[in-house]
């Protein structure tokens, strides 16, 4: 890889708060190392803005290792940019050409209101998780190895689903702003494992109900979510979610009144 620098034109969405109107502002990013990540490129632009006494561009980020799910925005209409299976923090500037114009926008969805610039409020995801994206039954101490058999395909499937980092790219890229890929990944991750199986019917009901209440759209199987997913969560998870909810609707028992399941 040749070591050289890029000069780019950025069109960045600037919005002071959820209550004000936003607009695109053009910036120039020069002396951008091809080795830097996309976020480091914005850091560089922000340093320039701070020096000039201007408000830096706000964006979410944390680990910058592609595992926390904090970062993410649209680059030229694509969630996390043009590369598949990558978060913006792991997207390197060598994937762009010198002199290119990059349009940078926040995730857009009714359920993800903009907080500031490229930062959106994804607490809708937290509220969905709070409705059953965990195991609350007592599973005892750590069992002896192999005393709790899990078929290999199930373990693999659960692991693939567990790779979801809840970044919101699926919602952002879906024409219906549907959260089905996220919810299906969470539901399948837990339902396939013995400990998660106990609350299986309730989990899918509660999480889907919350998903609908948050105002996410329905799935029309366009596949944009899976194509944009930095963890490449499979679209077949949504089919499994559909199956889970149908079985749950047919077989779920009435929960006794009071606390606990």
């Amino acid at each position: 890889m040749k070591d050289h620098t890029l000069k780019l034109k950025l069109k960045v969405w600037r919005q002071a708060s959820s209550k004000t109107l936003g607009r695109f502002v053009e910036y120039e990013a020069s002396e951008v190392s091809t080795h830097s990540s996309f976020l480091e490129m914005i850091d560089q632009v922000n340093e320039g803005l701070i020096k000039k006494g201007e408000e830096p561009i706000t964006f979410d980020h944390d680990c910058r290792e592609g595992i926390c799910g904090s970062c993410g925005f649209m680059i030229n209409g694509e969630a996390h940019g043009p590369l598949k299976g990558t978060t913006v923090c792991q997207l390197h500037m060598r994937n762009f050409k010198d002199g290119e114009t990059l349009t940078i926008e926040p995730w857009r969805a009714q359920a993800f209101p903009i907080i500031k610039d490229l930062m959106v409020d994804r607490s809708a995801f937290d509220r969905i998780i709070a409705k059953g994206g965990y195991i609350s039954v007592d599973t005892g101490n750590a069992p002896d190895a192999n005393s709790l058999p899990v078929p290999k395909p199930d373990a693999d499937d659960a692991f693939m689903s567990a790779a979801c980092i809840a970044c919101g790219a699926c919602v952002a890229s879906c024409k219906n702003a549907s959260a089905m890929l996220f919810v299906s990944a969470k539901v399948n991750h837990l339902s396939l494992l013995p400990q998660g199986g106990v609350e299986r019917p309730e989990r899918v009901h509660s999480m889907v109900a919350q998903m609908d209440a948050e105002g996410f759209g329905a799935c029309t199987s366009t596949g944009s979510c899976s194509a944009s997913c930095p963890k490449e969560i499979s679209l077949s998870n949504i089919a499994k979610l559909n199956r889970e909810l149908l079985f749950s609707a047919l077989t779920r028992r009435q929960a006794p009144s009071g606390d606990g399941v």
Partner: protein
Amino acid sequence: MQSVDLNSVKSFRCPSNYFFTSVGKKLVMGISGLVWAGFVMGHMAGNMLMFISPGAYNSYGHALTSGGLIYVVETVLLTALSIHVFFAVWLTVDNRRARGSQGYALSQKGSKGASIASRTMAAQGSLILAFIIFHLITFKFGPVYETTVNGVQMRDLHRLMVEVFQQPGYFAWYVFCLVLLGVHLRHGISSIFQSLGVLNSNNQATFQKVGIVYAIVVSLGFLSQPISVFLSR
């Protein structure tokens, strides 16, 4: 220990409410669509009798419409279509609201983009609905010609069909709508398996192919009929 909060989903408990979730609505779309997918295949195959003889075609039409079964079939089809359209409108309104009024400056392309067929199902469906209405006006409620096949008096649908498909305007409209039907089926058929939940990572590619093959068979089968009439003008 905190448990899954069931109180928040009380209104959700009755099984009928399942069909009003975003997941359930898709199943309704799928099943009502499946009824029509089956119908268009049968309709296409039956109409192939026009290549045998006008008499065979007319006798087939006569057999279908005499007897009570036609009313049962029409009721099922009309119900399925009404449900399909109603839920399609409902879902489209919900989905547009979820997307919000502020769109993206640039749309997705390349490997992260979705196919045009999958993104324009609502527009395709609206045109197909218009086609179905015009198609019924043209044929079912169109001019009644009489003919006699093997001593039985019946409606000469073959003559009407030939007259219609020889007109360039009708011919072009039919070709356009039948291609559109193929596009709609291509995404619809594969999506039904997704909505029914029978799809998994192993059979995903197979069901995609099933959708493509089904759409091509129906669309090309239907297209062969107006094309052969138009070319033999």
